[in-house]
């Protein structure tokens, strides 16, 4: 069970960390000053959540979070591809953030009651932040979806292309059935149903149509796009040049 729990914690942390890094790329470039502050704060929150999950992983396996983040090869990351895609335009950023935030919302509503106490504690701590993220990204989605013809079209285009990637968030990981049986994490199919119950009506109210696309073929978290490699090259460069022994 420990191996499955470690894999699950790593997947949770990697989603948060990689998305947080992509979000941080907007710092100084968001559409307006107020949003720049808001979104940089969201990026920081996501990276903070990753740190909390990585601390639980360290308690379980002894793995040093800094080494995992700054010295791990792309093939060993376990984030969903949705999180690693380039930041794109504001429409893509908001669609991705919204679909991710909704997934966080439904999962945290369950994991606050996890039978593994550390998972319940971390979930309780990060839940208010994710509630706010959801509120923020859902408001943007509605305003862009119902905004101008251009904002609507851009949102619809991004939703059509990236809806299948969002479904990756519910791909089960190896051994997860044991964690579900133990009441440590909820079952992905139930989460996906709850998630669709949240996002489908909201997207419809935002004037957006969910595409009738099947799930992506390569859905497990071992597979990555080339974008993760460039992201890591950028993010890990300084740590790799200086080496793991350097004290900051």
């Amino acid at each position, binding site marked *: 069970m420990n191996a499955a729990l470690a894999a699950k914690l790593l997947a949770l942390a990697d989603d948060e960390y990689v998305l947080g890094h992509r979000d941080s790329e907007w710092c100084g470039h968001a559409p307006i*000053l107020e949003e720049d502050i*808001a979104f940089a704060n969201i990026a920081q929150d996501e990276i903070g959540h990753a740190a909390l999950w990585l601390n639980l992983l360290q308690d379980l396996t002894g793995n040093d979070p800094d080494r995992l983040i700054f010295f791990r090869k792309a093939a060993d990351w376990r984030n969903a591809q949705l999180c690693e895609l380039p930041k794109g335009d504001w429409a893509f950023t908001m669609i991705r953030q919204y679909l991710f935030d909704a997934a966080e919302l439904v999962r945290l509503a369950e994991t606050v009651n996890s039978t593994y106490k550390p998972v319940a504690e971390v979930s309780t701590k990060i839940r*208010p932040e994710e509630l706010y993220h959801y509120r923020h990204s859902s*408001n943007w989605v509605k305003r862009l979806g119902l905004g101008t013809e251009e904002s609507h079209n851009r949102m619809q285009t991004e939703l059509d292309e990236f809806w299948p990637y969002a479904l990756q968030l519910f791909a089960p990981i190896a051994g997860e059935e044991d964690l579900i049986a133990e009441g440590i994490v909820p079952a992905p199919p139930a989460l996906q149903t709850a998630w669709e119950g949240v996002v489908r009506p909201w997207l419809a109210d935002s004037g957006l149509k969910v595409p009738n696309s099947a799930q992506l073929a390569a859905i497990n978290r071992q597979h990555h796009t080339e974008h993760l490699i460039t992201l890591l090259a950028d993010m890990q460069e300084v740590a790799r040049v200086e080496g793991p022994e350097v004290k900051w």
Partner: protein
Amino acid sequence: MDTQWPRWEVFEKERPDWPYRNAGSVHAPDAEMALENARDVFVRRPRCLSLWVVPASQIFTKTAQELVAGWEPEAVDPTRPVEPYLVFQKQTQRATETFVVHVGEVEARSSEEALAAALEKFAGRSVFVWWMCPARAITQSDEADAAAMFTPAESKPYRHPQFYKVVTQLREIKLKASE
């Protein structure tokens, strides 16, 4: 063409026994987004209980100098309904305490009439600036949203600007430079 979103004045309430006070302003397309921007820009830490946002265009303002120079309220259409107006004052010029704070309400048919009423009702204090706005122009953060809006800030570490001792350090640097 001006492509800026409208400007909103932001008021925050930090403690139950403190009045709402002006934190600054944000741009936003509507009241709900103004509340979110206000939250992100001004109250990510340390703590906040409630926020007000008001379209800046709805605030009528007069300084003490303008009043001394002579001011008479414009005549109001007598058929306009009487409604509550909120009264705000800037009561001090001290560098660390230059907030415009909410001091109370008056009933009036216009902002100008509200100021005339406030000058009588709140007479006797030294006031540097008066702000008036109709109560209906205010959008208040929803109490049900407090967990998402304000709880995260409470567990985040922060430092007051004074921590960095910029003023004293600059003074020392200048002193050394002049020696």
